[in-house]
Structures are given as structure tokens and as C-alpha cells.
């Protein structure tokens, strides 16, 4: 799969994977209810790449979940004879429907938010009458009651005085070392070639951190796409077994996973 060399994505302001996905769908002038999600997968992955290591881990996981689903759907489209035949296909259809449903739901709230924004803007232009009493009535005011004790008063003050964050992009980026999907994939290839297979748990047992686990997971998806591995999972969330289905000789395997590593201006071929 080629990531066009000229693909320069200027990161626009988007909030979360669904927001990004909606923007991309809109850019392709596709209707969200009909869109073949695989068409926007490349763009989506490109955005993730373009962000480099500017990711907040909490955010990144959601993006990766969506990305993985998209890749899966795309892979299914590219594989020959992708009619619904077995449970794997059914699971894929379910994943697609769920993604669609969540996307539609998000879009509904986004539309609602636009409505709220417009209402807020209009209402903010109306200034309320807020006047102190005319002097002749001021003397009549009953004794004032605060209705709260010192602790509640302090809590209120803290709330009001709490510093407002500057409008900015998230600053607590992941500063961990960059993990290369390509390297992790090469490592997996070598290992699987030797052993013939293993559980995902075992394949990631030596990972230094979550990022490496994620990278190996993405690597496995890439290998799956290349037809080099197959997956078996007895039940949802159960142990994931990986089986090597590629050549077993000594010749070097294909370079897989390069398109994840934006740092290296790697091969533009596939």
C-alpha cells in the first residue's frame, strides 16, 4: 500500500478519532451512511503518522482502536472472496456496524453542539438587567443571608479563582522514546518464522511498555494484511493466537510497517 509521497497533511483542529473521521469523510464528499470506510483509512492513518510523537497516550489509544478497525475493514475489502462466510467475517461486520453507529452518534452530538454554540453566541449578545436597588428601597432589604459556612465559602472561592487554562493544544505529550512499528514488525517476523506461531501475550511478553505492545499489535495487523500470519481467537477478548503462514526459508521477509514510521523517509514503494 503506497502512502503517496506528496501527501502533506496539515493537522487541523480535531477532537478525537470520530471528529477526524467525520472531517475526512466530509473531505471526500462521502455520505457517512454510505461511505466505504476503507476509502478514508489511508487519510486517517496519515493523520496519525503526521502527528508523530505529539500524542497523548490516552488519546492515542482511542485513535488506534479506530485505526485498527479501519485497517481491518480495509484488509477485508482487499482480500479476495470477502463474502460473509465464517465467524471472522461476521465479527468484522459487527465491528463495522459498531463503528458506524458510534460515528453517527458522535455526529448527532456534534450537530447538537453546533446548535448550542449558536444559542450561546446569540444569548451572549443580550445583556441582562442587573441593577442594585434604588436608594429609596435599599433600606428595606432584609438582613442578608449567605446560606453557606466558611468551608463551603472557601470551596466556592477556590472554584472561582482556579486558574483558567490557556486555550492550547494538549501539552502533556508522550515523551517516551519513539517506537518503530517497522522494527517491531521485523522482530515479530523473525520470531514467528522461527517458532511458527504463538499467543499475542507471549509475543509481547518482553515489551518495554504499552507503546511497544501497541506497535507490535499494529505490526501483526500489517503482517495479516500481507497474508503472512493468521489469527485465531476462541472468543471475544480471549487469548489471541498468531500463526505464521508465510514462507519459512531463510530469505528476508518483506519490509512491513514502514508506513507507520514517519521519522524515516522510507521507501515509497510497497
Amino acid at each position, binding site marked *: 500500500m503506497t502512502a503517496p509521497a506528496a501527501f502533506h497533511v496539515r493537522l487541523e*483542529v480535531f*477532537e*478525537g*478519532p*470520530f*471528529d477526524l473521521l467525520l472531517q475526512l469523510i466530509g473531505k471526500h464528499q462521502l455520505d457517512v451512511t454510505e461511505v466505504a470506510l476503507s476509502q478514508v483509512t489511508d487519510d486517517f492513518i496519515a493523520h496519525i503518522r503526521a502527528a508523530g510523537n505529539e500524542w*497523548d497516550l*490516552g*488519546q492515542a489509544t*482511542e485513535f488506534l482502536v*479506530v485505526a485498527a478497525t479501519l485497517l481491518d475493514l480495509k484488509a477485508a475489502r482487499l482480500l479476495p472472496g470477502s463474502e460473509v462466510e465464517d465467524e471472522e467475517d461476521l465479527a468484522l461486520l459487527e465491528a463495522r*456496524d*459498531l463503528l*458506524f*453507529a*458510534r460515528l*453517527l*452518534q*458522535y*455526529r*448527532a*452530538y*456534534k*450537530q*447538537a*453542539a*453546533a*446548535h*448550542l*454554540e449558536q*444559542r*450561546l453566541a*446569540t*444569548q*451572549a*449578545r*443580550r*445583556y*441582562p*438587567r*442587573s*441593577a*442594585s*436597588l*434604588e436608594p429609596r*428601597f435599599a433600606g428595606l432589604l432584609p438582613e442578608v443571608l449567605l446560606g453557606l459556612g466558611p468551608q463551603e465559602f472557601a470551596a466556592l472561592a477556590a*472554584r472561582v479563582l*482556579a486558574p*483558567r*487554562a490557556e*486555550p492550547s493544544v494538549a501539552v502533556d505529550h508522550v515523551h517516551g522514546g519513539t517506537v518503530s512499528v517497522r522494527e517491531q514488525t521485523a522482530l515479530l517476523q523473525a520470531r514467528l518464522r522461527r517458532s511458527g506461531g504463538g499467543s499475542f501475550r507471549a509475543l509481547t511478553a518482553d515489551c518495554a511498555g504499552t507503546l511497544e505492545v501497541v506497535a507490535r499489535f499494529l505490526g501483526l495487523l500489517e503482517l495479516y494484511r500481507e497474508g503472512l500470519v493468521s489469527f485465531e481467537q476462541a472468543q471475544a477478548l480471549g487469548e489471541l493466537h498468531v500463526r505464521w503462514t508465510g514462507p519459512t526459508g531463510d530469505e528476508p521477509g518483506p519490509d512491513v510497517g514502514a508506513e507507520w514510521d514517519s521519522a524515516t523517509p522510507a521507501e515509497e514503494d510497497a
Partner: protein
Amino acid sequence: MTEVPPLPAVLEALLLVTDEPVSAVLLAQIAETTSEQVTEALHALAQEYDARQRGFELREVAGGWRLYTRAELAPYVERYVLDGQQARLTQAALETLAVVAYRQPVTRSRISAVRGVNVDGVVRTLLARGLIVEAGNDPEHGATRYRTTALMLERLGLRSLDELPSLAPFLPDLDDLEDADSP
């Protein structure tokens, strides 16, 4: 006072001295009449102000009535009350507010599930702005739930939550989403 003054005048006087939305019920108590009559008179006043293009308008917000300057005149009012502008909410805050408004009471994790991102920071912002408040715990998981406030209605210029447009036409069948909602 020998003669009973006209109800609209009484209401106008009361609206002039209040500094928050006043309910028709309270106005009726003071004016010694029924809240139906008061409500009717308030609607008539609001219409009259609009028809005559007065500089102010009478609006029902957050369960009460209050006088506001007409929106078109904002440039003049802002020239006079310089620091009156309210900070704008970000897209993230708006979307989060929308989810709370339509799904309340709702937990943070449910909002996260809808938006696909962590919403802790935005929820704190909305709390600090007084637009949402905590509303007890989820009976199942014990997580804190949130709801919108009267201030939120006031800022939106809404009488009640019923005035929010229906989401139904846009929403996929919610039953299908049960899994998606509990991360």
C-alpha cells in the same frame, strides 16, 4: 393607592429591580393575582417590546423572566460595558456540554465513549464555569454523574431542556450502542 395599577406596569416595575430570572409564580404572589394571568401578561409584554423595537426584550430563561438588551444592539452595549464579553467555549467543551445536556445524568466514561476522547479536563472546565454540576453516583458502577445547571439554560437562553432540538432523527438506534458506551 386607591386604584389598582395595571398588571403589565406592576410586572415591568418588578422586572426592573430584579437581578436574576423571576418565576411567574413569584411575580403572581407579589402582584396578587394568578400565575396564569401573569404569564399571559408577560407574553404580551414580550411581544409588544418586539413589535415596537424597544431596546430591551423580555425573555423567559431557566424557568424565570428577565429583561435583556436586544441582541442587535450588542455593539453599543459592549462599547459601554467593556469587559462584559464572556469567554467562548471550545469545540470540545461544546460537544461535552451537548452530551451532558441530552444524556443527563451521565458519567464521564459515557461522555468519553461518545466523543472518543478523554473528557476529564473538559468536564472540570464546565464544572468550574458552573454549566454542569455533579448529580449523584451511577447506581451500578458508583461513578459520578453530571447534569446541566440553570445557569447553562440562562446562558443558552432556554426556558427548559425541552427546548433543545430533538436528537432522535440523527441518532442510530441506541440499543445497538450499549457495548460502545461502556469502555
